[in-house]
């Protein structure tokens, strides 16, 4: 099994669309509203509340954590809702995007340009995926409730390369 460490230091452009991988390290977890805010901050040239260089974004919002647990259930949300916000984040150094479903052309072009990749994991498998999460912390926008920005430590988190650095896309079938 191919493994990817985050923050990313290896050449992820060796990975090919369709390959199964296991991700270990830190993932930034956020989605719609946090994207909107971050992109606004970038447009205003403001400093962001966390670093994006060589990091990974997992589009998700967990259920609540039971007492004594690490995290509730967590799985990917529909990535294409983030398409309009993705380019500026890739330009600031994001290397991995993790979610579910196809992306629009603008994302693909930006992935190629910024040597980043898009991965998918299994939607609706939130109890299973939560077993791969070892640590959880809210690092920004706590007022967004479930949609706040979390930093999670994952171990052998299963995913599939959906769009690689060359723009080859698992969702485009001949």
């Amino acid at each position, binding site marked *: 099994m191919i493994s990817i460490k985050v923050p990313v230091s290896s050449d992820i452009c060796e990975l090919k669309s*369709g390959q*199964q991988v296991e991700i270990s390290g830190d993932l930034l977890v956020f989605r719609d*509203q946090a994207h909107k805010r971050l992109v606004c901050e970038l447009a205003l040239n403001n400093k962001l509340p966390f670093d994006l260089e060589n990091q990974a974004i997992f589009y*998700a*919002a*967990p*259920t*609540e*954590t*039971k007492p004594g647990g690490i995290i*509730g*259930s*967590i*799985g990917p*949300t*529909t*990535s*294409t*809702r983030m398409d309009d916000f993705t380019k500026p984040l890739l330009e600031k150094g994001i290397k991995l995007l993790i979610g*579910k*479903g*196809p992306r629009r052309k603008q994302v693909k072009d930006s992935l190629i340009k910024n040597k980043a990749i898009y991965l*998918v994991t*299994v*939607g*609706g*498998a*939130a*109890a*299973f*995926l*939560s*077993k791969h999460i070892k640590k959880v912390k809210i690092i920004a926008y706590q007022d967004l*409730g*479930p949609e706040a920005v979390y930093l999670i430590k994952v171990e052998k988190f*299963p995913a*599939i390369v959906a769009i690689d650095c060359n723009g080859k896309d*698992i*969702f485009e*079938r001949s």
Partner: protein
Amino acid sequence: MITKETITQAVKELCLQANINVRKDVTAFLKQAKEIETQDNACFALDVLIKNAEIAADEQKPFCQDTGYVTVFFEWGAKVALIDDLQKAVDEGVKLAYKEGYFRQSIVSDPLFKRENTGDNTPGLINFEIVSGSEVKVSILIKGAGSDNASNLVMLNPTVGTKGVEEAVLELVKQKGARSCPPLLIAVAVGGSFDKAGQASKKLLFRKIGERNDNPKIAQMELDLLDKINKLGIGPGGLGGRATAMDVFINQKPCHMATMPVAINICCHAVRTAEAVLR
């Protein structure tokens, strides 16, 4: 006698059950599909989903993080006295379940402006129907945003026939199937009106996989559409494969001579329904 407390308790129990236990017909489907798929990534996705159902049941946690919004269908027997504040009784049940189950609170008020989380996943959406008899049937549907966003309601021309309806369904699945957590359950409600078609499509999701419409012509249409959808190649998780849809359910109701309302309800594999009869 049915009281506010009876309703609250029923709604609470049904919400807990629906979010934690994957429907038996769904798990049976996933296991069967795994035997048929040949592609690695399709088998991987199905395998993960089968394990996911087991972990959720063992640990009593929701199997999908999007614990959605709650729709409650009441079929209220005419001989049963009504209760004073049904909305409050339902919301109390939702609130208790989402707290006790540690579910995600996903409902926001003021959607146009502030989008503030209501904090307890209320309000529940109520569909109320008076039926004959002395029982109350409570049916709960919990749907996440991923698959609801992929659903569509189209007002087709009255002359399009079954072909027009089929094309609308196939086009929607082609466009949005991969993102909405396949294998999908697809409920198509034809007829009624703009509002009633949407409701009817939701109600159809209670049907079990493999059950057919009593009308043989509609039953055949369901099977034909299922076959066509499963030849699209979208597959489990959208990763390629055969099991794009678990089943297709269709029903129809009378409509105006100038319309053909078609509600296409795309539901992910996380079909969350639960029912109880109160006496």
